[in-house]
Structure formats: structure tokens, C-alpha cells
């Protein structure tokens, strides 16, 4: 081989070496999704820690307690969860920059558990454009379940409001077939979606005859006397309340004040937290016998005291969030939501990926995803297989009845209604 030949050989050998080395490097170097390191998964969400909805701040604190518990018990396949809780005070103009901070500054793996319909609507386009999972949102609107085509990175968590109202409709059809129903509902999508669900549950034909009066109120109104008087005058004997907590308390108290005594009252789940019911009773409302729904284990129900979820929840809260009151149902909401996130993260791939997370959340198998904080008979279920698009993780609910007046509580009764959708 001459001089020239040797030079060519050297060049070829170097080229080959470089090619092999870079090829190995390319195969060996994984580009993980943001928020994932070998030891940590970073997630974050926006919550009303201050402001008008601050009483819901219990939820992210309970979620953090659960993540701390998981971190102390092996984490998610060895990775610890770092959960950033940001305060948007239920103000979308704060939600937007805080979410941008989570995505662009803190580089979170996912926007998790954020609370509120309006705040979530303000950022869902942005998060989906950025392909950041916006998951297990703390709101019961149906948008999150229906919009998987336009917003594939978004999911909800709790049973949605129309689904809940359908259950009331079905119950009334079966147990109160001659009921004359009087509804009070908030004059926005919250109340209107609830009313629509009730109509579907009753069947549109029956809904026309059975709903004798439907009174709406603006969320800005403080007095509901006019609406309650109209319901009383209509001869309704079944009172359905589709309102946020404050107007619910007003509606219940006003009904008693004007001397209207419907034989059966239904209170929407969001406003049925024990504290609100007790507050309504202290204002004179007659709440015994009122019906609502439940889907979580409840530490205030004596018959549930021996459920494993209750013991676990109490233990976790005592150790990691002693300031939270285990009797506040919102704590179990947080624990249940966080459990679902951990389950999904564990099934999002050995190195979790965002696509993996969404796949896990879109294919929750009730036989595997046994969430201990859910009421027995209520399971997580979603499915994007075989052409189905069930994007509602929780649809089953049990009915609960109030007893004991101002110092009382909810007791589950009857069967669990499955798949209200």
C-alpha cells in the first residue's frame, strides 16, 4: 500500500470510528420528557389557596400528603414526585402566567389536578398546543371528558355534573314516579348542564310532565326568595338544587323560611359537603332525608369506619398533613385523585413519558386500578380501545341520605349506579 493508500485508510477508519461512536451515542442518549430525571418526576398545578374558593385548598394539600407518602415508600419506580402547588386564587388571569411558569420555567412533566372550570378553560388550549398533559382536573364539568379529539392531552377525574343529575332522574323515575319536581339552578353552564342531565335521566317525555317548575338564579343574586316562592306556588313536592355551595345554603334555608316542605330534596354533590349542610341547618334549613351522591369513602360515615381506605387515609393524613381534618370529604377527594395520578405514572413506561401517561389514563382497567379511596362498587374506568372513547375516569356513584339534622351526616344507601353516561 502506498502513502496515498495509507492516508485513505486512515481517513476511512476515522470516519468509521466516528460513525460508530455517534451511532451508539444516538441510540444510548434518551431525550426524556421534561420533568423527568433519574430520581424525580416534577408535576404542578394551579389551585385557589386564597380568594373566594380558598376552602378547596384542602384538596392540593391532601394530594401532596399522598405524594409524600408514596415518596417514602419507594416512589414511582424509584423516582420521587415533586408537586408544585401554585395559587391562582381562582382568577384565570393568574392561572395563565402561573401555568406558563410551570411549563416554561419549571418544565413540569404534567399539569396535574388543577382546580376550577374557568381557570382550566383559560389554559387548556395552551397546554394542548404545548403537548403538556392537563390531567385529573378538579372540576366536574363534562368538557374534559368529551373533548379528547380537540384536546387530547386533557382529562378530568370526578363524576361529571350531568351524569350525577341523570342518577337523580333515574332514582326519581323508579322511586318517586308521581313526583312533581321543582328545580332551582344556577343560570350558567354549571346549572344548565345539571338540568339537562336531570332531563335525560327522567327521559325527555317524562321530564316535560314531571318537572313542574324550573327556576334559575344569577350567581350574583344573594336572595332566592322569589324563586323559592315560585317553586312553592307550583305545587312541587320534590326539590332539586343545582347550585354552588353558597346559593345552596340560601335555597335550603329560604325553603324552610317560607314554609315550603317538599317531601324529597336533592342536593348536588359539590354543595353537599357536610360542613355546608350543617351550615344550612344552622340557618333553619330542614335537611333530614335530603339525597345526594357520593363516590369516595367518607370518614364521617360510621358504617365505613372499617374500610381499608379510611384507615390508610387517616394514617397518611396524620403523618403527612396533620393540619387537615379527616372528616372534611375534600381530603379524600385529594387522596383519591393523587392515588390515580401515581397509578398512571407507574404505568406510563419504565421512564415515564407524557404519551405513556395519557395512554395510562385513557385505559384505566377497573380490575387493576383499585383505588382504595373510592366507595366500594365505584371504580376507575376509561377505555380508548376498540373504537371506544370513554374518557370519564369516574362515572359510578352511590346515593347518600342525610340524617341527624344540624349535627348529622350522610349515609350511603341503595345500590351503586354504574356508568351513568
Amino acid at each position, binding site marked *: 500500500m502506498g502513502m496515498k493508500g495509507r492516508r485513505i485508510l486512515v481517513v476511512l477508519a476515522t470516519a468509521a470510528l466516528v460513525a460508530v461512536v455517534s451511532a451508539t451515542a444516538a441510540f444510548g442518549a434518551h431525550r426524556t420528557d421534561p420533568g423527568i430525571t433519574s430520581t424525580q418526576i416534577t408535576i404542578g398545578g394551579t389551585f385557589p389557596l386564597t380568594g373566594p374558593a380558598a376552602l378547596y385548598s384542602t384538596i392540593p394539600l391532601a394530594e401532596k400528603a399522598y405524594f409524600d407518602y408514596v415518596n417514602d415508600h419507594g416512589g414511582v419506580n424509584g423516582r420521587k414526585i415533586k408537586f408544585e402547588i401554585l395559587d391562582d386564587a381562582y382568577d384565570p388571569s393568574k392561572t395563565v402566567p402561573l401555568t406558563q411558569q410551570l411549563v416554561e420555567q419549571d418544565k413540569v412533566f404534567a399539569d396535574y389536578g388543577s382546580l376550577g372550570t374557568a381557570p382550566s378553560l383559560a389554559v387548556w388550549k395552551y397546554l394542548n398546543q404545548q403537548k403538556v398533559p392537563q390531567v385529573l382536573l378538579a372540576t366536574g364539568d363534562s368538557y374534559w371528558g368529551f373533548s379528547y379529539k380537540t384536546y387530547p392531552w386533557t382529562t378530568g377525574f370526578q363524576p361529571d355534573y350531568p351524569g350525577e343529575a341523570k342518577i337523580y332522574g333515574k332514582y326519581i323515575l323508579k322511586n318517586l314516579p308521581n313526583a312533581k319536581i321543582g328545580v332551582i339552578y344556577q343560570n350558567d353552564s354549571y346549572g344548565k348542564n345539571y338540568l339537562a342531565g336531570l332531563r335525560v335521566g327522567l327521559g325527555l317525555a317524562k321530564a316535560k310532565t314531571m318537572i313542574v317548575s324550573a327556576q334559575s338564579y344569577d350567581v*350574583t343574586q344573594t336572595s332566592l326568595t322569589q324563586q323559592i316562592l315560585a317553586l312553592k306556588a307550583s305545587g312541587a313536592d320534590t326539590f332539586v338544587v343545582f347550585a354552588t355551595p353558597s346559593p345552596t345554603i340560601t335555597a335550603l334555608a329560604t325553603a324552610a323560611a317560607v314554609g315550603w316542605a317538599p317531601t324529597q330534596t336533592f342536593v348536588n354533590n359539590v354543595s353537599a359537603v357536610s360542613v355546608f349542610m350543617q351550615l344550612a341547618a344552622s340557618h333553619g334549613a330542614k335537611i333530614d332525608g335530603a339525597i345526594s351522591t357520593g363516590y369516595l369513602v367518607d370518614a364521617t360515615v360510621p358504617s365505613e369506619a372499617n374500610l381499608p381506605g379510611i384507615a390508610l387515609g387517616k394514617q397518611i393524613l396524620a403523618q403527612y398533613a396533620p393540619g387537615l381534618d379527616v372528616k372534611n370529604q375534600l381530603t379524600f377527594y385529594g387522596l383519591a385523585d393523587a392515588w390515580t395520578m401515581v397509578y398512571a405514572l407507574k404505568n406510563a413506561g419504565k421512564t415515564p413519558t407524557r404519551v405513556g401517561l395519557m395512554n395510562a389514563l385513557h385505559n384505566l382497567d377497573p380490575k387493576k386500578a383499585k383505588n382504595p379511596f373510592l366507595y366500594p362498587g365505584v371504580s376507575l374506568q376509561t377505555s380508548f380501545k376498540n373504537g371506544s372513547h370513554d374518557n370519564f375516569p369516574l362515572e359510578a356513584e352511590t346515593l347518600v341520605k342525610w340524617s341527624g339534622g344540624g349535627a348529622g351526616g350522610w349515609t350511603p344507601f341503595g345500590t351503586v349506579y354504574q356508568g351513568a353516561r
Partner: protein
Amino acid sequence: MRWRIPAGLPVALVVAAVLAVLPFELSGYHQVLAAHVGIYFIAILGLNILTGYTGQISIGHGAFMAIGGYTTAVMSHYHHTNLVLTLPLAFALAFACGVLVGIPALRFSGVYLALATFALAVSVPQLALKFSKFLGGSNGLETSKTVSHAWLYAACWSCAAILFVVAWLLLRGRTGRAFRAVRDSELAAVSTGISLPIYKTLAFGVSAAFAGVAGSLFVIETNGFAQPNEFGVILSLQILIGAAVAGLGSLRGVLVGALFIGLLPEISSSAPLIGSAHGQDVVFGLIVIAIMILLPNGVAGLLARLARLRARA
């Protein structure tokens, strides 16, 4: 008359140059923060025209921001109007509303005017809940397009620059002198032939128009999402505080006032001890009190004092 170089022009040019170059050095997220300061700059400028120059107090400028913001949301949502075009629309509509408010406000002064404008701040955003079908209600109303961080920065600071020049031109001329006369003594102003109704309502209109543009940009900054909770009473109070920190009756401190209101929550949230949600509010309140004690005439007053000291030396 020879054209003199206006005092403060060199400083203004330097600031403008910095603002022009700044976005290239900032990350996207910080561009949004800077744009946020620009929005407060415009709102504080507007309030200063009203309160600092004609002496009419308003704790209701959040309402005018809401009017401007919803104008942008409605025009973009229903008519797909170009977002830039919605800005002058918001200016015009807010101006009209400001004049409409200014007319009855002629009868009020001092604390009664404050209360009347406060009532505005509380009630106007609720209109979106009342007319929820058209204005989106509690689920808000969205523009048909969203913008990039860089676009937002450019829009906010271009508007700020334009409106600053407008304010400066307005205030240095006859109108400005009339405004100051109204503020200093209504009786003396009337006796020199200045029409109180015209100038007072004009001030309200212009001031509201500025707030309207700030509100439009505010909605655009919020991913084009307009919702009543964004325009709470706190917003009106923040603008007033910003104007007080800036120094009423002068254009010099407006940037500092805007920086204060725009950035302090951001800074205090990352401070160690006080980083919690409630700690922030406490710190904010304490700082405002401290500034009012130490700098009762705001930053502009401080600058004026320094200028006088220098002149004496």
C-alpha cells in the same frame, strides 16, 4: 417659538431603547412578565390623568379594564376581528363609558366619588354573569386567536409608548393646564373661564380609554380569555396603589409604579420566609404603607426633591 428639548426626553429615549432591546434578552416567560408591567403602565398612566391631574379619585378603573377586555374578547370571538384592531375599539368604547360615568360624577367629590367608582368596580364585571349567553358567564369568553409571548410584549410596550406620548402631549398643552387648574381650585378655574363639566368628563373619558386598552391587553395576556374573576376589586386597588407609588400629578414615576405593582407579587412569592400565599399579601401591604410614609408624593415626588436639591447645590 423655538422648540426646546423637553425635559426628560433623554431619559425617555434611553428607557425606550432598553425596552426595544430587552425582549431579545428575555426568556418567553419573562417577556410575559415585562408585558404585564406594560399593561399596568398604561392603566396607571390613565388613572394618573384623572386623579393626579384633575383631582378626581377613582377606585373603579378595573371596571374600565373589564370593558376594554370584553370588547376584545367579544369582537374576536364573534367577528374574528384582528386583535390589533380591537385595541382602538376598546379605547373608543371605554372612552365613551368614561364620559358617561364622568357626567354624574360631576356631582361627587372626595370619598363619595371614591365610593361611586368602587361600586362600578364591583358591579361591571358581574355584567358578564348577568348576560352570560353573550358574554360567556362564569366559563368566560375566548378570543379566536392567541398570541406569542413576543407579540404580547411588542403590543403592550408599543401601546405604552404611544399612549405615553399622547398623555404627554395632552398634559403639556392647554388641556393639561386646564386639568391642573381644576385640580388646584375649581373656583379659580371657573373664574378664569374653564368649563368644569367639559374638562372633568374629558379627563374621565381619556383615563377610562387608557384603562380600556390596558384591559384589552390584559385579556390577550390571559390567553385571550375574559372572565369576571380577572377583574376583581383588587385590580382597581392595585392600579390606584401603583399610581400613588408613581406619584400623582407627574408622568415621571409611572414606570416605577408599574414595575412595583407588576413585579412585586412575582418577587415576593419566591422569597423564602414570606413565600407562602398569605405571606405575600402581608408583605405587599407593609411595603405600600412604608412607601406612603416615606414617599408621600411617590417616586415622582422623590425625583422632584432630588432635582431641587441638585439645583440648590
